[in-house]
């Protein structure tokens, strides 16, 4: 990767396979990306595109079996997370790397108070006493905008609304001042007005705390609002990666282009008919030997069925895995 600061997280050639009764499913196929300090990387893709599995794999959160992280390196702070000991990994997870899960209803433990759950990482990772942890937990709840924080520490998750629970999840993830925060569809289960509150909060916290964030979503609108850089995934692979403005202005991959046209906005022109991507996303029973999008692609030609395109740098920090060139409307010269 070119210029700039050293990445905080560097993922190379990550490959994850699930063993199922109907055979192996290749969920993540040679995914590589890096994350620079203070950066917000948006990851977009449909369900089954491998975006969540990628993030779960890199901090080894997937149960094995059925999952098998086969290949790759994940460098964080000079440690390879895929080969380090469980002990080292436990020190990193929840400490230097925070995780926010999609569903705030199921990712909090219903039988412990919210206070206990925020204090847990503080005592485990920061070695705080109960009293110190309590004070810090109240500060954190206050930081994420929960009123009357000190008193609410004693409440259980069911006493909070969905938006509030997601704030609690964010407070837990932020507890130990992580360098990297991985947020897996953190606002998908929430209403738009609550989503707007959370997005505003994340922007504010980022400026205050300066951590790097990976934000997984299928909502291009959310990406447009908060990301610095975007990675588009399809069929377990990264098909396009670019700075956010560049991606929206100059999408290269036919999938990205079609995706941008299928989502209507509430501003601007209202299209008479929505653009459609025909067909279904693939289920990957084999490691890809051809482009995974070719069956749904309007631009596909014979080469797409023979070879799997590699990611190609097209300048402006933009890379794309496709043989078709939108500039010429024909095959790419490479």
């Amino acid at each position, binding site marked *: 990767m070119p210029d700039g600061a050293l990445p905080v997280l560097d993922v190379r050639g990550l490959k994850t396979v699930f063993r199922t009764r109907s055979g192996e499913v290749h969920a993540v196929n040679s995914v590589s990306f890096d994350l620079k300090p203070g950066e917000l990387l948006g990851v977009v893709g*449909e*369900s089954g595109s491998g975006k969540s599995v990628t993030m779960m794999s890199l901090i080894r959160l997937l149960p094995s079996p059925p999952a098998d992280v086969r290949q790759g390196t994940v460098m964080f702070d000079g440690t390879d997370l895929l080969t380090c000991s469980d002990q080292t990994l436990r020190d990193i997870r929840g400490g230097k790397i925070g995780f926010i899960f999609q569903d705030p209803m199921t990712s909090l433990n219903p039988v412990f108070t919210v206070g206990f759950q925020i204090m847990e990482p503080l005592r485990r990772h920061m070695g705080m006493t109960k009293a110190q942890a309590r004070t810090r937990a109240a500060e954190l709840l206050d930081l994420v905008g929960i009123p009357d924080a000190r008193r609410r520490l004693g409440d259980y998750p069911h006493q909070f*609304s*969905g*938006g*509030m629970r997601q704030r609690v999840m964010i407070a837990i993830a932020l507890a130990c001042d992580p360098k990297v925060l991985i947020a897996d569809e953190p606002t998908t289960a929430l*209403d*738009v*007005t*609550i*989503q*707007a*509150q959370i*997005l*505003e909060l994340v922007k504010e916290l980022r400026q205050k705390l300066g951590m790097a964030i990976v934000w997984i979503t*299928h*909502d*291009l*609108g*959310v*990406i*447009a*609002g908060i990301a610095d850089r975007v990675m588009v995934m399809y069929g377990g692979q990264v098909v396009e990666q670019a700075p*956010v*403005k560049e991606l*929206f*202005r100059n999408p290269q991959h036919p999938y990205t282009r*079609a*995706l*941008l046209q*299928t*989502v*209507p*906005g*509430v*501003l*601007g022109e*209202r*299209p008479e*008919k*929505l*653009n*459609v*991507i*025909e067909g*279904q*996303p693939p289920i990957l029973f084999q490691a890809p030997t051809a482009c995974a999008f070719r069956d749904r692609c309007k631009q596909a030609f014979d080469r797409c069925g023979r070879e799997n395109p590699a990611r190609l740098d097209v300048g402006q920090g933009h890379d794309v895995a496709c043989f078709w060139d939108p500039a010429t409307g024909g095959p790419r010269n490479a």
Partner: protein
Amino acid sequence: MLDAARSKPLVEVRGLKMYFPIHTGLLRRHTGDVKAVNDISFDIYEGETLGLVGESGCGKSTCGRALIRLYDITAGSVKIDGVEIGQTDQATLRPLRPKMQMVFQDPQASLNPRLTVAEIVGEPLVEHTAMTKAERLARVYELMDAVGLNRRFANRYSHEFSGGQRQRIGIARALALNPKFIVCDEPIAALDVSIQAQVVNLLEELQDRLGLTYLFISHDLSMVRHIADRVAVMYLGKMVELGPRDPLFSEPLHPYTQALLSAVPEPDPSLENTRQRIILKGDVPSPANPPKGCAFCTRCPKVMDVCRQAEPGFREVAPGRFVACHLYDTTNQKTAGRTGASEASPQTYQQGEHA
């Protein structure tokens, strides 16, 4: 585009209330009600799509189900095609059912896993028509063609299909009896973005071809902007605004509609960065214990004293545009508490202080 003034209402709703009782204590005494739909009135015109939007828990799905009497409603009147169904008993309703159908949110849960596609789509025909088996199969094939399902799949079970295809089965079933009115309850919420567009286009195509009338319930405002002719906004069991799509999206009147629209992320970074976002504080109050006065007064950025005392009436403030907000009270109307009277005579349009 549809000219609402010239077309006749197919569905007329007046003062619809749907309360769910709360029973507490050892004796399960009736101690209160969840006022899921609290006194709303509106019309749906023939051939149009009325979008119904709001956050979760605002009563939009309950409203849709109550309209076709999937619930026994607490109070109010619902007329479909001139026939009163609000307080009618189920036996009388049964022959009326073919006219009104529903497409459900979760295509997995709303299809019987033990029936094949042909049986699912053909079931309404068994119930409501005297068709022979061969006639039914012919009709099932016709319907499968109409929704873009391959005929070869007629003997497969619903679990063999993807989400988008399952939703097509649900739509085919709803179409089986040639309905006039279909309630689409979040038909695309469970689908992926690339599949959502397929289903929305299918619904629009079928509407053009068969002259259907839709109530399209959704929390996705950008999709509603795409499919609806008119849009109604609900908040905490109340309808706060109703109007034609374009003016409602370009110049929302109710502060809640303004906040809701400003909260929708726009998939374009250059437009996104120019927007003024109204961030609402706090959460939606409980519908079991709604605030006094206007339901939105606890979160409204433009709240006034009157909002905490008197409930605003649902009035027409410009042709075709209804809003329930004290900002649009004319001086002589300040104390008026006419709720749910959508048929109120048109008021002179008063420019509010909205941004």
